[in-house]
């Protein structure tokens, strides 16, 4: 074990304690709450008091998926920028020109998506 992995050990501990805390609370609730739900109506889906006609698997706007695709491109870009950002002070002007080029290539796609109306929500 070295300095590097030492910190992550505590990330693991936090994850376990967080999960354990949740499970203990869930168990407490299980032990304390009444076991029986008397009304059959309590377990129908809530739709403002009207009995639901269809199930919940409805069609929703395709836009959500388009945004997810554009997101992937930008998020990968952001991940590439992190190591650059750490070292930019030492690398200087040259690195900044390179990244400008990198972002410019991505911006072409961004403006294409904007021009095609993909960023419009309707």
């Amino acid at each position: 074990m070295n300095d590097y992995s030492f910190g992550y050990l505590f990330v693991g501990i936090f994850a376990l304690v967080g999960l354990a805390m949740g499970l203990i609370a869930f168990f407490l609730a299980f032990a304390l709450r009444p076991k029986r739900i008397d009304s059959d109506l309590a377990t129908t889906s809530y739709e403002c008091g009207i009995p639901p006609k269809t199930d919940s698997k409805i069609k929703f706007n395709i836009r959500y998926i388009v945004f997810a695709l554009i997101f992937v491109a930008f998020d990968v870009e952001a991940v590439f920028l992190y190591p650059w950002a750490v070292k930019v002070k030492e690398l200087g002007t040259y690195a900044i020109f390179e990244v400008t080029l990198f972002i410019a290539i991505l911006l072409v796609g961004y403006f294409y998506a904007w021009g095609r109306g993909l960023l419009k929500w309707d």
Partner: protein
Amino acid sequence: MENFVPYLIVALIQVAISLGIFGFVMVNALLLTLAERKLLGWMHQRLGPMEVGPWGLFQPFADMIKLLTKGDVIPKAADKFFYSYSALIAFTPSFITFAFIPFGLVGGIKLVAADTEIGVLMISAVMALSVIGIILGGWSSGNKFSLLGAVRTAAQEISYEIPKTLAIIAVVMLAGSMNVYHISSIQRVWFIAPQFIGFLVFFVSSLAEIFRIPFDLAEGESELVAGYNVEFSGIRFAFFFFAEYTYLFVTSAVITALYLGGGSGPEFLPWGLSSLFWFLLKSFAMVGFILWFSRSLPRVRADQLMNMAWKIMLPLSLVNIIWTAFIVLNENLLKIVVK
């Protein structure tokens, strides 16, 4: 961490710090539920909760008992497994993020449970995991409102993730490190000054990520009745809200560390305890500011929300990176900003 300190002692200190943070997480979430209701009351010229205990101080405990003893309602249309445990998926990451928050430097020991070199990246990565819990919760409820709330959550979170990440990149450029403690301690001038655009972008994106009011479309009461948590009650509902209030503090703490100089301030307590004091003071001031901010504004529309992320925040954050590059290249400016 110095190499000559034996690991055992370091480990014991870290465990002590972690225990302190565990306690803090619990108290913090309970305290914030009361604080929000009190503040909301005062803004409405009401008193807020007053009945349970002196000045309503025991209200959070009463709520806790109430939520623990609620009957277990699982809708017939729900997917049982994911419905039962999605609240835990939403909550656990919120707990993990506390490991990366630098509470200060007391007696030469950093009050960070996990002092990793990529802390900033880890915080945003772990925060993003919570969304999975929320989306699963909304989808598995078997309710149309909650399904719509869930897909809205997904769209909103991914849209604001990008400007937020790019705003953090500008801060990393100035600090030359992703270690949260390093970033907070290197600031000669609070980064809110050289990074004002970045701060605005980060602040707005963070509000959107934790569903505070101008951006609470995922749970908009007047349109989606309660969004992803329509069907949730009892302990599951409690954990979704536990996560939300925990994130309220985490966001404020991250803003404090990245933009408000972390624990820096006039030293008036021995052993560097003042750094802990200043960090908590700034964080809770930020929490108060967020609560005030979100109670003063009406909710935006779905299209306004998306337009703002993609057409205003994203270009602004790129402009901010260029501006930061300008500072980084100019040595005289850089000397003023960082130590």
